[in-house]
């Protein structure tokens, strides 16, 4: 009996693999049963999208907008409440009018995620994905199984820039997503997009396994094609006696320093690829290896992935930065029909370079825009009262359910904590949640965040134990 309620497109062979993963002798205690509700139409769309990614790289010149954008903007103003409220764009050409449009940001999405849905968008199959928000704005991202299905071709396109093919197939695990947190949801699934290949999400925290040694046993038996995770989880993965060499490690969500990348590449014998991705827009750009090409000093360049995602770099006042000038990464377009983005400020900073020569070298169109010197969200490891490390993701999870629109947590050199909160709601609950995490003796002060500026969510004065050291 196939579990088609959880996996509409599962086959017998896919089911065999799913059972193997869920009932594996060395499997972790999966926190819940996986599911993948991709529809046949979603599978068709994802395949078409995969073709589009191969033949339509995102290209434009500074100060220009791509052809598809004018129609997209027009639809936003006609159909999407949050944009319609602004009134229609000016009567100048799409290009000039576009650059004068007001920007949006996480606070808009945090306040009223429903206002981003086009009037004509059906609500059938709606999924709500809650995220703690790495900038301190908890978000409800509205999406759909068929939209989530587009992540696979984007991941494959990112790997393809490093000449790596994610094959999938019914007898193997394509992706192991590794976390290293106190608690997170873990599960096993199979996907029609990976030809019934497997996907597991595991938590490397030893408490989540029947035996800490099972972590390596399980992963060695699975031999996933690639691992995805973040610099902190890879530090833990590096400690395990893994026998098989993956095709790649794909790092997301936090800053991956060049030194740590090289150290991981030496440890695992494969490329370590940095993927710039966010919940609101999915995978945006992939770190490119320019070490043997024209380089940008010590900075990494990121190749944009999505054909219908326009990227601008803006100053604080909304004006455009010149090519090579540092500013906030701002997005328009995207592939989520529940969340059309229009000049959406990401809170991340970079420069945009237009490297014709480099583009040609990479076999891409001249005028290829590259994000350079991307300043993502740095991982911060706090210290609990008993000296144990506390990953910033654990803090996000501990505070996720609280009515806090924005916060900053800072740990001073003496170990004491200061929590800055926007507004007065949730102070009591936040204190309790943090003392649960850090220990009842933890010194903690709570203060109001004063300005409307974007806050850096996690900061610490503790002697910097480089993340690299955690893996040794």
């Amino acid at each position: 009996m196939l579990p088609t309620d959880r996996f509409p497109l599962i086959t017998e062979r896919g089911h065999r693999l799913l059972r193997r993963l869920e009932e594996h002798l060395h499997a972790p205690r999966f926190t819940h049963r996986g599911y993948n509700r991709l529809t046949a139409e979603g599978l068709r769309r994802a395949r078409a999208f995969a073709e589009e990614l191969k033949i339509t790289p995102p290209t434009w010149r500074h100060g220009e907008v791509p052809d598809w954008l004018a129609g997209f903007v027009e639809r936003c103003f006609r159909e999407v409440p949050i944009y319609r409220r602004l009134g229609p764009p000016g009567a100048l050409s799409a290009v000039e009018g576009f650059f004068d449009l007001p920007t949006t940001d996480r606070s808009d999405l945090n306040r009223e995620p429903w206002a981003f849905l086009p009037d004509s968008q059906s609500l059938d199959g709606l999924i709500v994905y809650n995220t703690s928000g790495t900038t301190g704005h908890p978000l409800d991202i509205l999406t759909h199984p068929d939209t989530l299905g587009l992540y696979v071709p984007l991941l494959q396109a990112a790997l393809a820039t490093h000449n790596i093919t994610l094959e999938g197939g019914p007898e193997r695990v394509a992706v192991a997503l590794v976390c290293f947190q106190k608690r997170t949801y873990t599960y096993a699934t199979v996907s029609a997009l990976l030809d019934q290949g497997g996907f597991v999400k595991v938590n490397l925290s030893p408490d989540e396994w029947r035996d800490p040694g099972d972590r390596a046993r399980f992963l060695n038996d699975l031999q996933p094609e690639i691992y995805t995770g973040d610099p902190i989880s890879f530090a833990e993965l590096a400690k395990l006696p893994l026998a098989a060499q993956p095709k790649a490690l794909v790092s997301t969500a936090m800053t991956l320093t060049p030194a740590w990348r090289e150290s991981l590449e030496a440890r695992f014998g494969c490329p370590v690829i940095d993927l710039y991705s966010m919940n609101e827009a999915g995978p945006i750009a992939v770190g490119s290896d320019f070490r043997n090409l024209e380089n940008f000093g010590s900075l990494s360049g990121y190749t944009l992935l999505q054909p219908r995602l326009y990227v601008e770099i803006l100053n604080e006042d909304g004006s455009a930065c010149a090519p090579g000038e540092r500013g906030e990464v701002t997005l328009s377009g995207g592939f989520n029909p529940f969340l059309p983005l229009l000049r959406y400020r990401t809170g991340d900073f970079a420069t945009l370079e237009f490297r014709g020569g480099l583009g040609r070298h990479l076999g891409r169109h001249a005028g290829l825009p590259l994000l350079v010197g991307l300043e993502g969200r740095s991982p911060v490891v706090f210290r609990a009262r008993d000296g144990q490390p506390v990953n910033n993701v654990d803090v996000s999870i501990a505070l996720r359910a609280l009515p806090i629109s924005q916060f900053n947590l800072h740990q001073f050199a003496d170990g004491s904590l200061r929590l800055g909160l926007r507004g007065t709601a949730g102070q009591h609950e936040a204190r309790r949640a943090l003392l649960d995490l850090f220990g009842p003796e933890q010194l903690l002060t709570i203060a109001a965040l004063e300005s409307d500026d974007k806050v850096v969510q996690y900061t610490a004065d503790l002697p910097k134990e480089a993340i690299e050291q955690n893996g040794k």
Partner: protein
Amino acid sequence: MNTEGPLLETLTRRLAECPADFLAEPRLGRAGAVHVAAVVADLIRDLGGEPLTQQQVAAFQSSNARLDRNRLRLVLVTCWLLRDSWFTNRQQFSKRALNFLVDGLTESAKLTPAPNFVNDPDRREELSRLCLSALGLRPAGETLAQAQDRLSTLDTAERQRVMTAARAAEERAREIRRKMAEEAAREAEMKTMRE
């Protein structure tokens, strides 16, 4: 409204022919194309008025797009309307025009996107009548009662339209929130931790 002004049709036609420059994005902070205060200052001069004071200039400067974008766009459209030779030839409307531009458009801007006052015949008529009323005029050939009645009818109809649209938008938002809550409950059930 005791004095006869121009024919209404000359004003509505002028609005229909509003050039793209007056529909461009107003300058807000460093974004946007048109310095609205400069356009207003030119108009007031052409109507026979004095240069604007700093305080008057400030009414047409903002960096808050959410709050002021539509109001400033409507100011630009209204400047185009008031630039009609019927007004400039008389050299007597500068004070009332300036007061109208500073204070008289806020309510309309909250209700209606500025381009509608160019594209929609009813809104063209409404803005033309509002302008005349603010200058103490009524359309040529109309009695005072007719002019007041027509302006009030247009205003009521627009408010009705806006309220209906707002109700529909709120209904849709409610439906989405209900679906989100259903989905969150289903998800919570599926993610119940195994003991």
